């Protein structure tokens, strides 16, 4: 292995390696091939040594592991310390991690520890030569990452031409699951760290509330969703329209908090991610926390009284006006069409 290796951080979620993080192996191999390096994986946590057998047939050359009884879930400080320890000894070209809330926190802290670059929520990575705009100096075969900026209005290409490793967190679901190579033997390197009392007990978990997923909105062909503007009355109309279209009811976080519908219908950062054929947004302004969960829908229709509402920017069809006037008329029209 040399310093042009690409590493992948394998997330441990509820005692198992997350499938999302495994998919990064596919991308890491693609980049490593061009760089002439290998693919490494990093697993840290408590009681994680037993997980090696779950990943040893994937397309990885070496697994670096820190198994320490004091590494607790959600302890950002000790996790970033452990990963940094491995990176500072091995110095790979880049570390790819999945963009979860926790992943981004760990990535950010690693970057400070190693005085290196971090880019979050990358939507793709590729290799190109980097030319410094001032000195004209060219860094050959540099990892570039594409990410959205300005709330998705622009994309930016960023690179870390000098500092290694480049820490990139990647949005989940971009790459296929990696190939298994049967009978493959991966090198396993175990590292140890000191976890002092000072590192610990700085944060502790008191409670975890998981939102029950009784309804899987990701399979719905049609979703009619309501936001703050819909009110309890509007949700009756939303329900009516959803049934008429054989679809499901969805909602934004404020609508769920207000009690107009149940939490399992929440779409967005805290809720589900959906891609229906038709998404009808009713009284939804289009805050990024919601749109992140629905912006890939095939057709988006918005009904909102505010013509400036950001939801219209990502809509195929928009109706500006009072939803309490518009919705009953649309329902009536559809009933006529149906009969």
């Amino acid at each position, binding site marked *: 292995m040399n310093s042009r290796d690409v590493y992948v951080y394998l997330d441990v979620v509820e005692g198992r390696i997350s499938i999302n993080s495994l998919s990064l192996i596919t991308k890491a191999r693609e980049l490593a091939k061009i760089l002439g390096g290998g693919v490494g994986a990093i697993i840290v946590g408590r009681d994680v040594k037993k997980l090696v057998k779950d990943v040893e047939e994937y397309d990885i050359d070496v697994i670096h592991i820190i198994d320490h009884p004091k590494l607790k879930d959600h302890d950002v400080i000790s996790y970033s310390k452990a990963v940094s320890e491995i990176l500072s000894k091995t110095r790979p070209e880049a570390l790819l991690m999945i963009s979860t*809330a926790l992943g981004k926190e760990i990535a950010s*802290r690693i970057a400070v520890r190693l005085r290196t670059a971090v880019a979050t929520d990358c939507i793709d990575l590729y290799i190109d030569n980097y030319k410094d705009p001032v000195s004209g100096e060219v860094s050959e075969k540099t990892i*570039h990452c594409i990410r959205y900026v300005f709330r998705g209005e622009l994309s930016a290409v960023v690179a870390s031409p000098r500092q290694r490793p480049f820490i990139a967190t990647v949005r989940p679901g971009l790459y296929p699951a990696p190939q298994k190579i049967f009978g493959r033997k991966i090198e396993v390197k175990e590292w140890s760290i000191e976890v002092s009392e000072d590192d610990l007990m700085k944060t502790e978990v008191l*409670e975890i*509330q998981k939102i029950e997923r009784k309804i899987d909105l990701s399979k719905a062909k049609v979703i009619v969703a309501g936001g703050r503007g819909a009110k309890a009355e509007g949700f009756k109309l939303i329900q009516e329209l959803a049934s008429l279209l054989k679809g499901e009811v969805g909602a934004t976080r404020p609508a769920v908090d207000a009690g107009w519908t149940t939490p399992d219908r929440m779409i967005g950062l*805290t809720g589900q991610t959906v891609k229906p054929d038709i998404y009808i947004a009713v009284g939804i302004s289009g805050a990024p926390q919601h749109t992140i969960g629905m912006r890939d829908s095939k057709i988006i229709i918005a009904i909102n009284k505010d013509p400036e509402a950001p939801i219209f920017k990502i809509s*195929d069809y928009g109706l500006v*006006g009072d939803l309490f006037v518009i919705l009953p008329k649309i329902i009536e029209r559809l009933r006529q069409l149906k009969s």
Partner: protein
Amino acid sequence: MMSLNIIVLVKSVPDPKTPPTLKVDGSLDLKNVKIVVNPIDKYAVEAALQLKERYGGKIIGLSLGDHDNIDIFREIIAMGVDSFIYIKDPDYQRFDTLQKSYVLSRAIKKIEKDLGRVDIVLCGVESSDTNMGVLASQIGEWLEIPSISYVDKILEIKNGSIIVKKIIEDGFITLRSRMPVVLSIADTGYEPRIPSLRDTIMARRREIPIWKTSDLSLEFRETVLKTVRFKQIESKRLGKIFRDEDVDKMIDRFFEELKRDGVSLLR
């Protein structure tokens, strides 16, 4: 009653309603953009104000940038922060998150010298321009203190510890952390207050001291993350927006358009 020293970080950004256009070389054309306070930072300000109302203390607003438009921070003062400091650096546009978080953490250290201690540093979960979401964690690491990102709501402060509800992928997690702590606040659990006319007028008279980064005895001055170019995202959406006083007419046109595009709502 306990008394908290709170710093709230506020970023100035190009108005998200009118994002910058691009020059031919793929760099941002910032000449004509309107600079505003990063909208989500107001939720952090609100969280700070509610902490002060409940536990007492002092709130200092802190911002880093390169422009002279300090009047945009008066809205934050009018909301109720006790004082505001602006750090100005002509090289700011070249800074990456590592450099920004370093400069801010040095400034927090400097403020701490005057205040005795800082208990809580707050910021918004991410800025509307770079969308990175790393600031709270990076400042936490520079200062070697805990940090929690994506905080929905601060629940309680007791015996030198703070209890917060944090947003995770499939729900929420309640965490207890030692103080001092850095928290990034989401736009979910708070509703930023709108300052009164009286407070808005009062805020106009307040002085906003401007610090230079050269006063902060910086040892680390490097931008490691380079932006190569920007690109406009072409909207693949049809963007057919209907507006009419006569709602029936509007709905007629909407259904006609659906028909023309071959879209059927009924299945």
